[in-house]
Structures are given as C-alpha cells and as structure tokens.
C-alpha cells in the first residue's frame, strides 16, 4: 500500500478531526488512541494487509512509522 493512502485510511478509520498525520506522528498523542482505536486498527490491518496484530502488538506502537514496521515495511510502497 501507498503510505499516503495508509495515512488517509487511518484518519478515516479513527475519525480524526483536524489532525495532519505523517509517519513520525506519535499515535499515543491522540485523544482517540484507546482500546476501541486498537480494535479498529487491528480490524483495518487484518482486512487490508493479511496481517493479524494483537492488542499486545499495539501497545508497542508509538509513531505511525512503528505501526508500519509491525505490519511489515515490505507491504508499503
């Protein structure tokens, strides 16, 4: 997936308002980054990357870049 598309999808999935996401953005700074967000991201990643993350995996996530690394850099253009 194109990284730009991934960022746009995250904004849409997490219903982020007035947030400019980039790969260095720390997701933990979002008010919306809670257990529901974790479920939404796990579902989104599962649907789009054939990759099954766990809540434990998401605990390790800080920046969008770190999320991309967990999903697998090779899956991004």
């Amino acid at each position, binding site marked *: 997936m194109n990284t730009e598309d991934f960022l746009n999808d995250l904004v849409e999935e997490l219903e982020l308002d007035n947030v400019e996401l980039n790969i260095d953005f720390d997701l933990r700074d979002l008010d919306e980054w809670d257990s529901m967000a974790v479920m939404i991201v796990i579902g989104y990643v599962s649907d789009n990357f054939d990759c099954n993350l766990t*809540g434990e995996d998401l605990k390790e996530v800080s920046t969008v870049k770190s999320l991309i690394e967990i999903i697998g850099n090779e899956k991004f253009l």
Partner: protein
Amino acid sequence: MRKISNIKIESISAVVPKNRVKNDSISHLFTTKDLRRFEKTTLILERRHVNDNTTASDLGFIAAEKILSNIESKDEIGTLLWLSQTSDYIIPFTSNILQDRLDLSHDTFCLDISAGCAGFVQGLYTAFSFAQNSNKKVLLIIGETLSKILSENDRSTTPLFGDGSAAILVGKSEHGSTNSFFSFGTDGSNHKAISIPHGGFRNPFNEESSLNSIDENGNSKNNLNLSMNGPSVFDFTMREIPKSISNFMDILDTEVKDIDFFAFHQSNAFIIKQIARKLNISSDQVLLNISKFGNTSGVSIPLLLVTENNKLKNKNSKIIFSGYGSGLTWGNCMLNLSADTNIYELIEI
C-alpha cells in the same frame, strides 16, 4: 472432539426484562464521538436490565415455565441444570430452588454449573451427556443478571452487558441417528482477565471489597464489580476462536458452505465480524442480535436462536455454536437443529 448421538434440542425459550437501557443512559462514560465509535464497533444500541428485586433465576423460572407448560407431564424431566454466574445464593445452589418453584419431581437430579460466555456450549454438552444416560429429559436453564455486578463508572464493562435467561429442553431423538459434536478449550492461566476479585473464599469480603479504585483508563469500580481486561480478552478471542472453529470443522470434514448458520456468542459485533472474516463466513450465515441485547453471557446464543427464529423455523438447519469468555474458556458445537424444534417467541417481563 466429543460426539453425542441421538440426542436433540427439543425446545428453546428466552426471557428478557422489559426495561431497555439505551446508550443515552451510558453517555456519562463517553464523549459524543467515543459513543459513536462504540456503537460503530460493537453495534450495541441497547441492553435489558432487571429491577433490584428480580434475580437471574426469576427470569429462568419464566423461561422454564414456558417449556414445561407445553409438554405432557413434568415427570418427563429427570435432570435440571442451572447455569449462571449470578445465582441467588452462595449456599444453597439454585437448581434446587428452581426444582421446587417449577414443581418438578423430588426424583429430579439438580446441578448448578458456574460458567460464563462459553456457558451455553458447556451446558448443552452437559445436558446432552446426561440425556444420553437417562430415559428422561434434561432441562437446562441459563440465566444472568450481569447488570447487578457492574460498576456504572466502568466503561470496559457497563456498556457491553445485559440481562436475560433461556431454557433449553434436551431429549432423545426419535428419528434415526443424529450426531452432535462438541470441542472445548481452556486457558486457566488467564483466569483473571474476566473476574470479580473479592467475595469468594480466595479474597473474602473485607473492608477493601467495596472501596472504589480508578484504573489507568479512568474506570472506577470496586472489588465486587465485574472486572474485564478488554484488550487481553480481545487478543484471546482473535488468537483462539477462529483457529479452534477451523480445526473443529477440519476434523469433522465440514466446510463453511456446509453450514447454514453460525451462532457466535454475542460479545461484540466487531469481534464476531473478525472471526467470520478470518473463516470466510458470509454475513448471511451469521446470526446477530447484539444491537438489542448486548452481551448476555451464556444466555446469548439461545437468546439469538429465539430472536432470529424467522430464519430457522420450518426447516432443518446445520448450525455451529461457538462460545468464548471467562475462564478463559471456549467451546464449539455442531448439530442439526430440526424443523420440529419448538422455539418460542421471546418473552419480555
């Protein structure tokens, strides 16, 4: 794999309280946006709660009466199973109380089962096993009033759970061979993931039992409230349940297309959809009613069969039940629900 032959579900009834608790009653737990996200992910829009004076066994009594009023004689019942985590007392057990209230014979074998969200499959396997070893029928009653053990200020539990009860009559199949299959899994190492920490004998009631504490997510509850580590339970479900159903079907040489309906424990719609997606189950094979009742623990699958009966009636259906939750425990069952199964309309009290 456990196989039971020539036993069937004869009747199913379900009862819920009339009192609908809609999401505006839990709005103190969410911002407007969070509530929308909650509804979008879980699909839960309302749940039913009993009043202070009604217990789970009161609901169970009514569910059982519906079935008993439609059989020839109560003497057909040889075994009464009560399955719940919100029983009337610590001592005595509740099945005996129900034996008396339901005016069942003194010869009835009564047994309580403590089980949670996998309870329907656990209870059904127990009922099928007893029915196989007896000439009489087994009445399984499942009831939960989880509303009584929730902290209203804990958003990891209160928005999810509802109250209800179901009764299931199990007996011998008269028409040739019918096979039912069960499989179970247990991970006792995660038993604290869903628990009430105090009030048993490991941590008896003391002055700290009713003290509120606030967790890292701002949820307030005491040690007598239901406590759930949501992310841990979510991980468990995603890790174990698709795999266990897939293995179950492989052993039975059954494919998804061979199954008419999957009745998953109604834990939350997101989890159910994820399980279905991983197993390539189409949405029209998945029964769903969580938006109206929330998670009613072991009651959820029979309640689902009652509310979705329009899809089941007048035909034979090959069904897979899958329950998963506290313990942590999971169980799967594949059986044929025959067209002559009596599934009664939902009772609201």
